[in-house]
Every structure is written in C-alpha cells, then in structure tokens.
C-alpha cells in the first residue's frame, strides 16, 4: 500500500467520526498549548531579569565596601571595626587597569529638595559624567554632569523626570536654581523618563557631582564603584585588577567586595531556566494524559471497526498494513492536534504579551520542539497497542463482528 493512500485512508476514517477526532485533537492541542504558554511565561520572566540587568549597564563590575565573609565572623567585626571606606582616589586608581574602560563612583543619600515654596525628600546620587554611559541612562533635556576633575564640587544638578515635573510643572527647569539641603544647585539637565529598573526609580532622583555629594552628606566614602570592562572577555580581568589595586591601596587588607554583574546574572539565568523547564515539564504531563486518551479512543475505534478490519484482511491486507493504518491515524491526530496547539500557544503568548507589555513573552524554540515531539511521540507510543490489537484480529471472527 502506498504512503499517500495510507494517509488518505486514515484521514478518511478520522473524518468518519468527527466528534471523536475533534475531541482528541483538542486534548492534544491543550497539552501542547500549555507547554508553549507556560514555557513562554518562564522564558519571559528570565528575559525580563536579563534585560533589567543589562539596563543597568553592560560588562559591569561592581565594587562595594566591606567584605562578605561566608566563614563565620571576621576578626574585624569582633573588634567593632567599620570596614575601611572606598575613596574617590581608590576609584580613580582602578582606571589604571587596562581591562577597565570607564568607572562611575556612586554616593547615595537623601536630602530635601526645594524650589520656592515647593519641597520634598529626594534620593541624591553623587557621581561623575561617566554615570550616564556606564548605567545606560538617557538624558531628556540639557546636559549631564560636566566631565572634569573628580574632586571638583561644581554646584550643578540633573533632575529625574518626575522631580522636575513636581517642582517645575511645565516650566523650564534647565538654568533654574534649586536648594538641596543647605546648598544651592543649578539645574543643568533633566533625565528622560525611564521608569523602574531593578527596584530603583531613576525618575525620582537628583544627580549631582560626587564631590558635591560628599560635602552635602559630609562623608568621603563611596557607596559603590561601577566599573565598565572593555569587553565581555575582559570582565574577569577587570574584576581581578580592581581587587588587586584596592588590596594594595588598603595596605594589604581585603576589605572590599568585587562582584561581576555576569555572575549575578548567570545565577538568575540558571534559576529561571530551571523554573521554566520545571513548569514546562508539568505541562508536558498533560501531553502524556492526552496520549493515554488517544490510546483509549483508538481502542474503542478498533472495537467499533472490527468488521472493517476483517474486510480489509479478506481483501488482502496483511496485519502490518492494518497496523500502519491505525498508526497513521494516531500520527495525524497528534500531528494536527499539536499544530493546533502551537497556534493556540502562540496566540496565548501574544495575549499575555499584550496584557503585560514589559514581559518579553515568547516561547523558547526548545520548548516548541519538545512539545511537538512529545505530542507526536505519545500519540504514536500509545497507539502501538491498539494498532497491534487490530492487526492481530482473526479475519473470520472480525468479519462476523465478533
């Protein structure tokens, strides 16, 4: 028997009982769609996190004061020592490493900001002109902090878009003066609205030169030093260099922690990929259930079509051919079912993407392949028994409908 004939005959018998066929395809489709949608969600969550990280900057190495001890209590803690702070000179020294392209020191504090009668509390970020490229921020209006000597405390500030809106409304802010604590700063720029990124709303901050921030908060230490490595490959070298340089500058004491964004990102990536696979796996169970359903219905089909099977045998069809016919039915069922499931799944992912535009929902290729594969696999696997049963029917008994 020719393949085309086998397929045509099988699809004919599927059309012969449309309700049964549709229900079975529906079961298959739901299974496949569940895998596609759930993995798409998981993958979306993973990409969301990755995007959030890369919106912080690329090839980032972050230096923070203090040492995270994982083995018990450090000696410094027992003596009540505060870890040595990271100074601006420390930060500049890191630039000596060939692997480092840019650095942005960071000081954070809160202060009141006021313009005429309006005032509010605000988070103040002290940094340099390099912050803009390193943190991938976008300026809306005016200029960012001027480049130049790191120790120079020019009284200028850049406002977050929401702060600008609250203090100035629709009036021009660039060129005006505001008061931060007891100091006056001239507004030179306004950030573009960016919204939340890693729990840090850049719309509600004020950025001033790091030296000015130190004077404002009366400190000399840095909260973080953001280091941008020259390339992805030099991240590790930048991390080691930063550690060595600060180690030397701090008289051989390892009192800073250097982390790479990559390491953090990789951890999140692993966790979320595992999560996606787990969720996909659970959905795949529904595919196995659909497979059992196919087996059940195929068994019923064999019982219902005993006479037809007997006839085919009398007309010269060997058992193998009968088995292939039932196989073809199962493959068609699960094949069409999984295509419908894929369409449903993609449509579902689209809808979720419409509802949560910030979540980059899209089903990963491996999940799509796996779902289709499992659907076809279970369809074929679970039709082996019914098909064999049909093939082994005794033609005389089958013709008599027994």
């Amino acid at each position, binding site marked *: 028997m*020719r393949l085309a004939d086998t397929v045509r005959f099988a699809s*004919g018998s599927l059309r*012969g009982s449309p309700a049964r066929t549709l229900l079975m395809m529906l079961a298959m489709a739901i299974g496949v769609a569940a895998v596609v949608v759930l993995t798409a969600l998981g993958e979306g969550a993973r990409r969301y996190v990755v995007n959030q990280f890369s919106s912080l900057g690329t090839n980032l190495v972050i230096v923070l004061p203090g040492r995270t001890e994982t083995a018990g209590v450090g000696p410094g803690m027992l003596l009540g020592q505060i870890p040595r702070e990271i100074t601006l000179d420390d930060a500049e020294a890191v630039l000596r490493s060939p692997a480092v392209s840019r650095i942005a020191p960071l000081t954070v504090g809160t202060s009141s900001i006021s313009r005429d009668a309006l005032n509010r509390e605000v988070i103040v970020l002290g940094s340099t002109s390099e912050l803009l490229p390193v943190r991938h921020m976008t300026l809306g209006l005016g200029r960012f902090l001027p480049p130049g000597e790191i120790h120079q405390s020019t009284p200028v500030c850049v406002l977050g878009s929401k702060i600008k809106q609250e203090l100035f409304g629709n009036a021009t802010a660039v060129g005006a003066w505001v008061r931060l604590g007891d100091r006056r700063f001239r507004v030179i720029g306004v950030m573009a609205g960016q919204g939340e990124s890693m729990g840090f709303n850049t719309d509600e901050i004020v950025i001033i030169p790091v030296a000015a921030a130190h004077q404002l908060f009366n400190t000399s230490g840095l909260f973080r030093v953001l280091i941008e490595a020259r390339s992805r490959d030099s991240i590790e070298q930048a991390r080691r260099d930063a550690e060595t340089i600060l180690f030397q500058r701090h008289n051989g004491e390892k009192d800073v922690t250097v982390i790479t964004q990559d390491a953090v990102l990789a951890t999140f990536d692993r966790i979320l990929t595992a999560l996606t696979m787990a969720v996909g796996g659970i959905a795949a169970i529904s595919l196995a259930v659909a497979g059992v359903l196919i087996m059940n219905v195929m068994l019923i089909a064999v019982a219902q079509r005993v006479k037809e099977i007997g006839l085919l045998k009398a*007309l*010269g069809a*060997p*058992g193998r051919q009968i088995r292939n016919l039932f196989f073809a039915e199962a493959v068609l069922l699960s094949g069409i079912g999984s295509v419908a499931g894929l369409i449903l799944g993609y449509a579902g992912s689209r809808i979720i993407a419409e509802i949560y535009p910030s979540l980059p929902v899209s089903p990963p290729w491996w999940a799509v392949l796996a779902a289709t594969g499992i659907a076809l696999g279970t369809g074929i696997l679970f039709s082996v028994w019914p098909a064999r049963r049909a093939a082994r029917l005794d*033609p005389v008994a089958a013709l008599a409908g027994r």
Partner: protein
Amino acid sequence: MIALEKVSRIFEVGDQQVAALRDISLTLGAGEYVSLMGPSGSGKSTLLNLIGLLDRPSSGIYQLEGRDVSDLDDKQQAEVRSQKIGFVFQSFHLVPRLTAAQNVELPMMLAGVPVEERQTRVRELLQNYGLTDRADHRPDQLSGGQRQRVAIARATVMNPRVLLADEPTGNLDQATGREVMKLLENLVTQGITLVIVTHDVEIGARAQRQLHMLDGQILSDEIRAS
C-alpha cells in the same frame, strides 16, 4: 485448481474440542461452479473460509494451483488472498464512508497498484456492472442489488482465480437475487472458479456441482448433467 486432502478444522470451545471439518478431501477444477449446501453448523462457512485462506486447517493439506498453502503465515496468506481470491458476502461489507468507486478501488489500493491504473480499472468495472452513474454514491445511498454489484465488482477487481460467495443473495429479494446470480455465473463463463455457500435450494441447484455437508463432512457430491 483447489485440492484439499484430509483437511480437518478443530475449534477449541472452552476445554472442549469441536470439529467443524473432518477429513475433507475435495478437488475443484478451474472454471468450476460449485454450490455448498447444508444446515447451519454443518461446516460450509468454515470450509469456505479455509479455501479463502482466512483460516488454516488444523490438519491435512490444502493446495491452491499446485502450491501448498496449508501453513502460510499472515503476510503470505494476505498476498494470496489479494492476488487469487475474491470474496462476496451476505451483508455486502462495503465501507460506509467510501463511495462505490472507492470501495471497488480498495483491493487495488491495498495491493499498491498505481493510481492511474486503478482509476481505469474501476471505471471499466463500474461500467460493466451498470454502476457508472452511482460511482460517487455512498453505500447507504444504494439499493441492495446495487450494493451487491459494487461488492462483486470489488471482489473481481484484482482478476482473482477463485470467487467465494457466502449467501450472496441472502439479503436480497428474489428478483435482485437472480440478477446477482446471473452476474456471478457470467464470471464462471470467463473462467473463474465460483464457490457459493447457500441455504437456498433453488440457488444451489443452479450450480453444475453441488456439495451437501453435514457435521463437518461432505455428504454428497453431485455433478449435474448438462
């Protein structure tokens, strides 16, 4: 053509053994027209199934065209059925979702005959049996006589040497029954070997050779003088 030598067929019903055929020896020549008669349970259908290779003898030797076919496996049996044997059933056994033409085409499709050849042959047969205008009708849109004509067309589509008919007129009225018999007898004149199982004495009497069976044995074997 067909030679049975001491053929028995024993069924196991529960722990009892029931002999449906006992030591039957029979030779049928090519182009012979034979009727098999006898009461229910006499073994005539079992004999027919055995000749049609739907069954195997428990003992004895069955030779078809000089070849021992007593102990073929499923695939070889199917091959012989496909090439040499045609079946006509009492209840027609047409596939309800297929049209008349598709039903006739079925044996050729199973045998893997190329599509063009199939279509030519089906058209030719439908015309021979006066079914051309019924080609695209499903069995439930056909009368009993038309259905049996489709079934006969299907049985002969592969040009078999042997045609086995089990009560071919059992579900038809007398007039249509006679019509169907004429079609079958017409095939005998073309050289086919026809074996008919029937209860109907009148139908049975039309055959040149009449076999009467009882309790799994051949009671009488009469050849009508023509």
